[in-house]
């Protein structure tokens, strides 16, 4: 175990040196090359920033889609002359009463795998979009599990795009925006202390519509809506004259006559035509500007607006007008987003954490170093030098992986300091025992290393198992702990069995004729 070929020694020191270069690149700029300018990233808890987890609420979309399905069903029933009664939408399911004779016909249409406009078949799931239950003549149609997954997925994809646009427009520093599962979006905003503005921007679906204030009932029906900034309410027609989909741009502006902030919008050709027609036909009536079911304002149409541009007024400050313009530019979210988890750390707390982490690392390190010297004297030096090399390797590998260092991650490094010496302790204790029965020092060292091997390996693998499980099941900062702990174990095994063993063999050779007492 003590013999090292020249090549082996070269490889060991080559690995150590090259990894060390990476750990240095955290402190100095080594070269302009991208490869050598890697750094350990600081987690949000150390550099400050916000973590947000959003959940897409797809219920409105499901309901909307079911309404469409209901209309489609009516058409199909008419075409196939199927008689039905009581076709209604209730509790996210469509309920129908069919004649006995029509049920088989309905089932053939509904279970058609090839061409099915009402109930798509997903070969990848081996399942239909919808599922139904028949109870006597009553049929109950619902979205199947996979149908819901597909809706969630497509809603998530659209939402992700809008979220990305909104955050990009705010211009934060290197945001991370990721999908999580079927209906969640994870956002990391480093350096952002107060996520309030972003939260507000993401909390709005930004569904803009221009609708007439209802004076008499028409075929479209009407609803009572409240104003955004007051408790006043108005009866608004459900007929949408113009919607945010037809916008091509939106800019905040300032009306110097009224001293009010406004949002200037311009519309595409379809929108402009529709808007022109509406305003021409309704001069003198009030047109409500509705955002997410709240009335921003309801000005009177004084003259037809034909140019394809418009002004949104409301009780805006310049800031709220800017944000509204941003929301309108980036488009409406297909469904509302809920913030289901938020973690924000201010930059000063991050700095304090780095300081505290560094101090405790340094003190822990010094304590362990001295304790090893006290216990093992000269062999303690070997343990201490390998501990230092171990730390350098750990930092180097974290750098190569561009891992994220969190506060628990720092704790993982400190813990590695405490536990890494264990490998050397196991070996030294074994050597100590061997020295009692073995005359030759070289032999004692050799068998010591050999016999300690299985214990060292087993002892480290158990901790590694914990670290791996934690890595896969932990979240955020805790994951950082798993990373440093896990990599720490690997570097520990390397330093103990290659680097420290080489030092020990050197030491044993030098002292082979002396009496060693550990």
């Amino acid at each position: 175990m003590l013999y090292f070929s020249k090549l082996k020694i070269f490889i060991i020191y080559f690995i150590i040196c090259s990894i060390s270069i990476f750990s240095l690149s955290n402190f100095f700029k080594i070269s302009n090359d991208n490869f050598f300018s890697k750094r350990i990233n600081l987690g949000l808890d150390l550099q400050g920033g916000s973590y947000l987890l959003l959940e897409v609420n797809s219920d409105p979309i499901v309901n909307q889609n079911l309404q469409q399905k209901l209309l489609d069903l009516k058409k199909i029933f008419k075409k196939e002359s199927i008689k039905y009664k009581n076709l209604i939408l209730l509790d996210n399911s469509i309920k129908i009463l069919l004649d006995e004779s029509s049920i088989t016909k309905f089932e053939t249409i509904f279970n058609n795998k090839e061409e099915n406009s009402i109930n798509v078949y997903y070969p990848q799931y081996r399942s239909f979009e919808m599922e139904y239950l028949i109870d006597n003549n009553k049929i109950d149609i619902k979205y199947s599990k996979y149908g819901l997954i597909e809706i969630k997925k497509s809603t998530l994809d659209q939402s992700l795009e809008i979220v990305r646009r909104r955050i990009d427009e705010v211009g934060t520093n290197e945001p991370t925006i990721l999908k999580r599962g079927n209906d969640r979006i994870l956002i990391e905003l480093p350096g952002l202390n107060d996520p309030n503005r972003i939260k507000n921007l993401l909390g709005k679906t930004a569904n803009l519509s221009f609708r007439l204030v209802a004076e008499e009932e028409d075929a479209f029906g009407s609803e009572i809506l409240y104003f955004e900034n007051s408790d006043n309410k108005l009866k608004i027609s459900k007929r949408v004259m113009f919607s945010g989909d037809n916008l091509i741009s939106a800019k905040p502006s300032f009306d110097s006559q009224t001293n009010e902030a406004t949002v200037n919008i311009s519309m595409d050709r379809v929108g402009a035509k529709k808007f022109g027609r509406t305003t021409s036909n309704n001069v003198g009536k009030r047109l409500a500007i509705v955002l997410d079911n709240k009335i921003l304002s309801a000005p009177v149409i004084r003259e037809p607006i034909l140019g394809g541009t418009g002004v949104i007024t409301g009780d805006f400050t310049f800031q709220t007008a800017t944000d509204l313009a941003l929301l309108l530019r980036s488009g409406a979210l297909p469904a509302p987003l809920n913030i289901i988890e938020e973690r924000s750390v201010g930059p000063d707390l991050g700095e304090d954490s780095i300081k505290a982490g560094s101090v405790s690392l340094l003190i822990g390190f010094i304590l362990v170093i001295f304790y090893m010297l006290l216990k093992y004297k000269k062999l303690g030096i070997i343990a201490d030098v390998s501990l230092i090399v171990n730390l350098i390797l750990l930092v180097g590998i974290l750098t190569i992986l561009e891992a994220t260092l969190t506060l628990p991650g720092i704790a993982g490094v400190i813990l590695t300091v405490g536990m890494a010496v264990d490998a050397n302790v196991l070996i030294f204790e074994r050597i100590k025992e061997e020295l009692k029965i073995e005359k030759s020092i070289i032999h004692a060292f050799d068998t010591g290393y050999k016999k300690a091997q299985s214990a060292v390996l087993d002892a480290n693998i158990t901790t590694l198992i914990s670290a791996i499980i934690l890595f896969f099941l932990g979240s955020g900062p805790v994951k950082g702990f798993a990373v440093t702990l896990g990599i720490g174990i690997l570097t520990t095994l390397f330093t103990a069995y290659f680097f420290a063993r080489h030092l020990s063999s050197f030491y044993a050779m030098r002292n082979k004729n002396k009496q060693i007492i550990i």
Partner: protein
Amino acid sequence: MNLNIKKNIIFSNYYKKMNIFSFILIIFSIFFLIFKGLNLGVDFKGGTLIEIRSENPNLNITEIRKALLKMELGDVTVKNFGKDGDFLVKIEKTETNNPDFIKSINDKLSSNLGEKINFRRVENVGPKVSNELLKAGILAISLSLAAMLFYIWIRFEWQFSLAAIIALVHDVIITVGLFSFFSFEVNLSIVAAILTIVGYSMNDTVVIFDRIRENLKKYSSISILDISNISTNDTLSRTLITSVTTLLALISIFIFGGAILKGFSFAMIIGVIIGTYSSIFVATPILNYTNVSQKSVLKDTEDIN
């Protein structure tokens, strides 16, 4: 018989007493877990956690609590956190639909107290997420116990695996029990600590077991009880030195690592002590009770060869 052992502690004399002691601790722990429960943090219970800092060192907990209670936020707890003027506020309520929730708390708190309050850290966890985190935490701990059981079973014989896993469960129950007894908060980092304790305790046990197996093969005429004593003594100084270095590192985190790492390092310190104890006084005695013998160890080696 001269085995050349200097430190010759007859551990087996204490097995019975220590087992009773452990048994009592476990009963107490389970009692507390059932009747008092755990003080779950926002990670696992949902709610809002805010670390606040005020420039006014005279600000006290009562004032802050009063100001918060006016806002009707449900259950509110306030405690000192680190230096003067730093507090940790825990609010039962969370509003996932209202993006201005945190801001409104800050505004109202600042105006109620008549000074600017700085929110240094905010953690707001909705009920759905906290539920998932709790499940993931329990899954992680169970999975790590299962993984250890499996690993030891592969590396050793079933008797070793059984004894090691009982010792691990012992460590986890007592650590969690102590958290219940002291009402210390359990959050994500405590789960990380428990997993690390599982790894550490296993590590300690494995070293002793490794030696027991080795000695079992070596000496055919010695009883398992004596083998256990010899092996524990053989590895004793390693066990103690490693515990000391690990504890030195942990105590350094506990004292200097800041308020956020206090719970984590405390759990680890308890865990390391219990883990070391359990390797000697739980895992090894149980191995004895399983009637492990040279036969069971040698048979296994033959199978491999």
